[in-house]
């Protein structure tokens, strides 16, 4: 083998090694569908997916919180951490100050039925342990939709509001299960409806999913989702 070939081989090997090092040295690149995308990236996420799950959300970087029992979670989510917490419809990039820390609202697209908060937290440089995640989305209905139900799942506990009314809460150390919690019958008004969720996680994995069910228990379609 001549010297020139040896150089090529050496360069190739060196490049491969460097590439490998780069990959493993960035521990938070998880190559899987569970990793959400920050920012509004996917135009198809403006409607629920085939199974009715909402795949676009605004999520605030997590706030420290501890406790997943019913009473503890209710206290956590009823605490006002920043002004207009229960009415704000934020935009991507909006910032709030919580306990002297600046937190940012991120628009998030997910490729899955759920939003993986573990990876979200990692993407924004933190983690999901003992944390409270606020999430908001605006659901635009072409007409009034009656006798619908909000169906959620979360890891772990979560409480949800529709147009300012608390509609469902699930508590305890739990994994996300589709339709784990289902609200009483609701009416979505024509036009925008604000869906707000608070997910409280103790440790380990964290995620949530949400969709609406129609009067027959089937996934509700026919509305659009907006985070801008």
């Amino acid at each position: 083998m001549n010297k020139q070939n040896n150089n090529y081989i050496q360069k190739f090997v060196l490049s491969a090694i460097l590439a490998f090092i780069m990959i493993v040295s960035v521990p938070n690149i998880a190559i899987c569908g569970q990793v959400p995308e920050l920012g509004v990236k996917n135009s198809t996420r403006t409607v629920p997916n085939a199974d009715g799950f909402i795949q676009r959300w605004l999520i605030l970087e997590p706030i420290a919180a501890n406790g997943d029992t019913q009473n503890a979670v209710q206290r956590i989510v009823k605490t006002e951490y920043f002004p207009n917490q229960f009415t704000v419809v934020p935009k991507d990039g909006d910032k709030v100050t919580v306990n002297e820390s600046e937190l940012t609202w991120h628009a998030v697209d997910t490729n899955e039925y759920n939003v993986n908060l573990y990876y979200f937290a990692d993407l924004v440089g933190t983690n999901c342990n003992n944390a409270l995640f606020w999430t908001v989305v605006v659901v635009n209905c072409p007409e009034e939709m009656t006798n619908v139900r909000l169906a959620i799942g979360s890891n772990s506990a979560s409480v949800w509001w529709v147009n300012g009314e608390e509609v469902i809460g699930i508590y305890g150390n739990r994994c996300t299960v589709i339709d784990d919690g289902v609200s009483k019958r609701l009416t979505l008004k024509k036009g925008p409806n604000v869906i707000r969720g608070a997910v409280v996680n103790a440790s380990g994995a964290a995620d949530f999913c949400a969709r609406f069910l129609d009067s027959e228990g089937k996934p509700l379609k026919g509305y659009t989702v907006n985070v801008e």
Partner: protein
Amino acid sequence: MKPIRCIPLLTFFPMTIAIIMLAMPVFALEGQIGTHDPTTIMLCDGKYYAFGTGGRTHVSEDGWTWGSGPGTPNGGGMGPDMIHIGDYYYMYTAGNVGGQPASRIVMQKTKSLNPESPDYGWEPMGVVNTTDGVEFCNGIDPGCFHDPTTGKFWLTFGSYFGNIRVVEMDPETGLRIDMDEYFDIAINCEASTIIFHEGYYYLLATHGSCCRGTDSGYNIRTGRSRNVTGPYVDHTGVDMMQGGGKLVIGSGGRYVGAGHFGLIDEGDGVQKFSLHWEADMDRGGSSVLDIRPLLWKDGWPVAGENFKEGTYEIESVRTGTAIELAVEGVPVGGGRGGRGGGGFGGNRGTRGAGTRGTRQGAAPGGRGGAQGAVPGAGNFAGAIGGQDAAEGRRGGAGGFGTFGGRGGENTGAARGGARRGIAGRGAGGGGGMFGGRGGGEPMPDQNAADVLANWPEGNIDVRMANYMCQAQQKWTVTPVADAGGYLGAPYFKITIAGTDRALAVSEDGELVALPAFTGGNEQLWRIDMLTDGTWRIMPKFVSIAGDSLVISAIGNSFATLEKFDPDSDKQRWLFKAP
């Protein structure tokens, strides 16, 4: 089959509950139910009617409380049966001609069973069968069957002398088509009838001895055939012409001697049957009318049980979660220190206040176990447990080893919470992650009185959750006097055990737990066993309206009222020992 006709039956029922039998009282029907050899129960103008041997007649507005009915047409008779086909109710009554086994069956018809109806009036139509006392048949105990697959009408008859026979009748007239043609289908039984289910004809007949009070061996058995004219074979392959028959119902509890099966098909997966007991021990051993659920197991009919009062977990067949009050549960016994942290907690910590949180910063991770344990003895006596985890919010339990109770085990220390925040280090004198509270003494059940102070006053929402043997998940089901009933059972209230907090339907049509039972129809429940042995639950106000809303699981954690779907498991429930 003897379907109930005249007015469309309730088209209902969403919930099923399977009962694990407890030694609780089964309820007999209320009122005047003394009878023998009752006809299939008929529904007419909103009331139920039954006729028995010797002129006993019964009428009920709800199928639970019975009174004396209109007189038996033409003075009575023996072992009658009835059927409603087209515009007419046909009643077939037997009588002996001289002594048994010479006998005959006569038929009468009317357009209404309601004496106040202008259509009421029995019209004798003559003899449909005779047996001469020599031939191998005692032609009594007629049983009517209208074949849903062919529209043909058949009559069975016979008693212990000789065979059970089936003959074809004219559904237009109720009369015999051919007086000479018959088919022998069973022997050594009586009170026969045929029903149809999923491709098979089932001959139901009563075996055993009649008319001896508590010494009566009466029991109802069955065989099946692909042809209405037989042969009818039981589950072991024995032909009913050779005495075969699979047991459907026999004596039990306070009742002796089951006889004279009559099908009641309420539709939507709810079937019941009428019978009489030779002896009801709660009524001095007299012969009484009863109604029981009919189940189907592996293709065979089996008698179910009417609901028994008691305290239960009410569990969804679909989700496996149990109905509960939407309150924070307290672990039985108050809980104990658990494992601290989790897989991620100890290493990464949480974001502390005031910082964006480096990975190592702020409050180190995880939760320790709960406080409060006494350091145990042993070689690795518990230090303050979960030392590392104690830097988390709750600190570790003191002194419980992982394998508490063994004291001095190496494993205790080895697994002590240094890295993982597991509560306790070192072996203790008891308790620990797997040792319970130590000592091995039985823990008392959690009763409502233990935790009631934590519950809000006023209405409480209802949801479903994993069953944890907690007080808010235990329900006492009790019959309510003078609240009426339905075929075979009274209405019930469902209250949290040890309280008067009652399950009800709220104004928005969802479930709620009221502070106290006040007797309203939205607080009373009809509980029907479905043919698979599970149960459905329907509020009384729905039942009496003839609607079909029942308790239904929706999602994992919520129960609501929905229209009954007999093909769905959302509305099937188990009542399990708590």
